[in-house]
C-alpha cells in the first residue's frame, strides 16, 4: 500500500490524542484509511442516549474529495436512508480540502440534532416527520433505544 499522506497521519494522531467529546474515530489495523466511528446522539435530540456506529473511508484523492461516511446502526432520520447513507452538503458539493474528518463528524452529530425533512434522503421518514412530528420523534426515540443503546454494543 502506498505510504499514508502526512495529512492523514496528522489527523489520525489528533483524533486519538485529542478526541471530540461524544465522538470516537479509530482507524482499522488492516487499512488506515478505514475508520471505525462512534457518535453519541446529542442530548437534546430524539437520539439522546444512542451510541451510533458508523464507518468512514478516506478515498485515494482525499483531501481533494470528501470522506465516505455511512451509518452502520439503524437510525430513523429524514436525511439518512436505510442503507445508512447520509445527505449532508459538506459530504458532497460543499466539501473543501480545508475541512477535516473531525469537522465532518461534528457536522453529522449536528445533523442528528437538527433533522431537515425539507431536504430528505429517506422520503418515507421525511413524510412522516412532516405529517406528525411528535410521532416521528417518538419513533426515532424508540429506534434509538432498540438499535443504538450503548449496552447492546458491548
Amino acid at each position, binding site marked *: 500500500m502506498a505510504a499514508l*499522506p*502526512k*495529512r492523514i*497521519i*496528522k*489527523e489520525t494522531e489528533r483524533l486519538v490524542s485529542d478526541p471530540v467529546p461524544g465522538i470516537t474515530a479509530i482507524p482499522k489495523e488492516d*487499512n488506515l484509511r*478505514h475508520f471505525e466511528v462512534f457518535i453519541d446522539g446529542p442530548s437534546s435530540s430524539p437520539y439522546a442516549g444512542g451510541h451510533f456506529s458508523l*464507518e468512514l*473511508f478516506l*478515498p485515494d*484523492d482525499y*483531501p*481533494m*474529495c470528501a470522506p*465516505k*461516511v*455511512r451509518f452502520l446502526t439503524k437510525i430513523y432520520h429524514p436525511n439518512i436512508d436505510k442503507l445508512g*447513507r*447520509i445527505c449532508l452538503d*459538506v*459530504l*458532497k458539493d*460543499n466539501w*473543501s*480540502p*480545508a*475541512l477535516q474528518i473531525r469537522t465532518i463528524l461534528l457536522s453529522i452529530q449536528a445533523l442528528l440534532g437538527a433533522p431537515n425533512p425539507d431536504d430528505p434522503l429517506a422520503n418515507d421518514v421525511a413524510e412522516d416527520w412532516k405529517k406528525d412530528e411528535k410521532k416521528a420523534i417518538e419513533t426515532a426515540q424508540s429506534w434509538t433505544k432498540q438499535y443504538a443503546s450503548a449496552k447492546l454494543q458491548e
Partner: protein
Amino acid sequence: MYYESDAVSFEYDEDDDASDSFSFETEDDDAALSQAKPLYYTSNGTTDDNARTSTFNNVWYRPWTLQEFVQVHFLDKMEKLKQDHLPNCSVDELLIMLQYKKWQSEEVINDYFDSRERLYKNSGLPLDGKSKNTFTVIQDFSCYVCCETYPSTTVYSLTCGHQFCISCYYHYVTHEISNSKLITCIDPECTLSIPHKDIDEIFATYEAKVSAVKVRKPLSLNPLLISSAKLFIDSHNTYKWCPATDCNHFTELLGTPKEAEEGEHLKESKSTDISQVSIIGCPDHHEFCFDCNYENHLPCPCWVVKLWIKKCEDDSETANWIDANTNACPKCQASIEKNGGCNHMTCRKCRFEFCWICLGDWIHHNNSYYSCNKFKEDKENGGNETSKRKYKSKLSLQKYLHFYKRFAIHESSMKGDLKTLSQVNEVTRLYMEARKEHEHNLSWNDIQFLPDAIKSLANGRKTLKWTYCFAYYLADSNFSEIFESNQDYLNKTVEDLSEIFESIVSKKNTNKVGTILKNKNKIINLSDLISSRRKTLISSAEVNLKEGLLSFSSE
C-alpha cells in the same frame, strides 16, 4: 470496504489533448464527404466560413475542435462584451462573470447594470475590482491542507489572503475542474473565484516543479474552459462527438431546431429513404451519422443499423443455435445435442429411449433401426411444425453467420489498414529524410496521394462492412443482384488497394519508397475507383429503395 455515498455522478471524457492524428492530413481533401462552401448561416444568424455540406444528402454541418469552440464561443464572446459594453472590466473579471452566467452575455450585462455589487459578490470577485491574487515563493511554509512543511515552495492566494501550497491547489483544481463551474478559494468559508488565467498559472507552476519546464498555453486551452465546452456540447443536442476511436472532435448540425425535430420524426419510422441519413464529418474527416452517432453506415438506414447491432449484441443467435441443433428430450425436456452416432437416442437424464428424427418412442421403430419412416412421411406432408421451425432457424442462423462473418472481417481489416497507415506514415518520413540528402528529387507533394488513398481505402471498407448488414435485411429480388454485383466491384477494388499497401510495408520489401513510387499511378487509380464505386453503390441503393425495387424483409 469502499462504498458510494451518493448516487449522482457525472462522467467526462478524460482525454483533453487536441493532438492531430496524422501529421500529413491536408485540410479539405475529403471530397467524398464534403465540399467547403462558405457563407452558411448558423443558428445564431451569423455566417460561418467553416460550414460544410455533406454530398450524401446536403446536410449542413460545422466540424469543431475543442480549442476552436472555446475561442469562438467563450473568448470571442468575452472580447465582444469588453469592447461593446464593459470596457472597464478586466479579462479575468469578464470570464468569471460569463462563466457564472453560463456564457449568456445578455445576462451579464443586465445583472451588471442592475447591481454590479451583487454580480461581483455572487460570481466571487473582489468588490473593489482590485484583485490581489498572488503566487509567491515562501520559505518554511506549512500548508494547512497537506500538513507538509516546505523549506521553500510557491504559495497561491486570492485577494482573501488564504494561502495554500501550489501542490494542493493543483490537485484541488484538477479535482474540481470536471464540474465545469467556477472554482473558489480552498477555504470553505471563502467564496472568491480563481480566475481562468490563474488556473493556467497553477498548472504551469506545478508542472514546472515536476518537469522543470514551464509551458505557457493559450487561454483557448484553459482546462476550465475546455471542461465547460464539453459540458456545453453534452447538453446541446445540435452537437455530437465524433465516435471514431481517440478522436476528440465534434460536429455541429446547422439549421433550426425545428428542422432537427422533423428529422427526428422521420427517423422514428422505418424509412427506407437513405438520403435522409445525416452523414457528417469531424475536423479529422471521420465520417459519422449525426442521428445514431455511429460511424458512416450507408447504405443502411439508421433503424437497420440499430436492429443489426442489437442482433450482434444479444444472444438471440444462441437461442437460434440451440433451436436448430438440439432437441428437447420428449419425456423430461432436457436439451440434447446429437454430436454423432445413430438416431437411437437414450436421454442421459431420464434414460428414455427415443428416435432423434421423429422424437417418438424407440419401441415403435422395431425393424427399421437406421431409417425412420415417420420422417419420410413428414417430408411428404411438408414436415411437421417443429421440424419446419428447426429448418427455418437453421437457415436463419446460417444466413446471419454468412453476413456477420463478412461484416466482422471488414471491421478487423479496417483496423489492419489503420496499422498500415501508420507504417506508411513512417515510410514517408524516411522518404523525406532521404530527399534532404538529395538521393532523389521529388517533392512532398509527390507523395500526397498516399494519405488520400489510405483514407479512401478506410472509407471503402466502412461502406463494404455495412453492405453486409444491408444485405442481411434485404429481401430477395432481381435488384438485389445488382446490389450484390456493386458490392463485388467495391470489394475487389478495396482488396486490390489493400494488397498494394501491404506489399509496401511488408518486411521482405527492402525498397519501400521505390515500391510506392512504382505503384503510384495504380494507387491513385484504385483509390479514385473506390470513391466512385462507393458512390455508385450508395446512390443506386438509395434510388432503388426509393422506388421500391429494393426492400427490407421484416424480421
